[in-house]
């Protein structure tokens, strides 16, 4: 492929990608997509969160998983950075700590694809109070 250097090159690439993607039927409902949130505060950045995030962006698409990768701030688990929060459609958020590319692969293959729990989960319950009230 030729080098991309101008905005026109980017535009050309976009058209090329679009013509292929349309065939793949993206889910229209954002709720139905897997959400991956990478913590990107000072602690995360210093621990290498950027590399992990690029890995998720690349690999989720390669493996045909309809996911949206975003960044969040620090969740207070600085000791376990890089941390990644994964929300499977209709499920509670799950936070994984000490994520490198190897663990990211494990999270995609086992947790995102099959719902199996993997090492490095940081327990945190968003819903505790609400549940008690019910």
């Amino acid at each position, binding site marked *: 492929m030729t*080098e*991309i*250097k*101008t*905005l026109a*090159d*980017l*535009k050309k*690439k*976009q058209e090329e*990608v679009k013509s292929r*993607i349309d065939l793949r039927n993206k889910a229209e409902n954002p709720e139905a997509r897997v959400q991956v949130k990478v913590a*990107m*505060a*000072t*602690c995360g*950045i*210093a621990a290498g969160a*950027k590399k992990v*995030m*690029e890995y998720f*962006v*690349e690999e*989720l*698409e*390669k493996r045909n998983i309809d996911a949206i*990768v*975003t*960044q969040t*701030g*620090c*969740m*207070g688990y*600085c000791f376990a950075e890089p941390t990644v929060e994964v929300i499977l459609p209709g499920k509670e958020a799950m936070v994984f700590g000490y994520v490198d590319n190897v663990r990211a692969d494990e999270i995609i293959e086992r947790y995102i694809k099959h719902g199996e729990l993997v090492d490095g989960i940081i327990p945190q319950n968003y819903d505790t109070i609400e549940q008690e009230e019910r």
Partner: protein
Amino acid sequence: MVDLSMHLMDIVQNSIQANAKTIDILFEEKTKDHTLTFVVSDDGIGINKEMLKKMDDPFFTTRTTRKVGLGVPLLKMTCEQTGGSLEVKSEPKMGAWVKAVYRTDHPDCLPLGDIAGTLALLLKTNPEIRFRVLYRLDDDEFRFDSDELKQLGIDLDTAEMFFALKEFFTANFEELFRKRPCGSYLC
């Protein structure tokens, strides 16, 4: 922080937290003065006087999840260790402006790092924010405005477009950096 691109990511996060709609990023290298100036300015909610004073105190943060805030103090440390300086200006509702000056003739000057990848990542994950980037190297410059992407109908939804954008930045920076005279620690 190992390189400047990490500081870039970190300081821009502060702007994003401050609900900025437009974020301006400026790098300016001056060969004659041996300086690299790094400026991030935004139109976010701004910082009040009291907080501005505590800004470079590592044990101050607006967060409730933890008790230390190292973003700005680390930036201050890395630029001051080269003999440079850090300046922060802000007023409530008037956005914020952070300027760090590095001496490029000092061996402690941080390398630039993966600026292209960091910019691409910021653009991909914050599609609602307008980013304007200006990299000036003496008389040459590279300008970028994320609104131009929108006007051309380019979205970064796919990984392929993300890597294309990264390549676009890399190619442009490479061309610009070729004009940098050697002797600078940024080489």
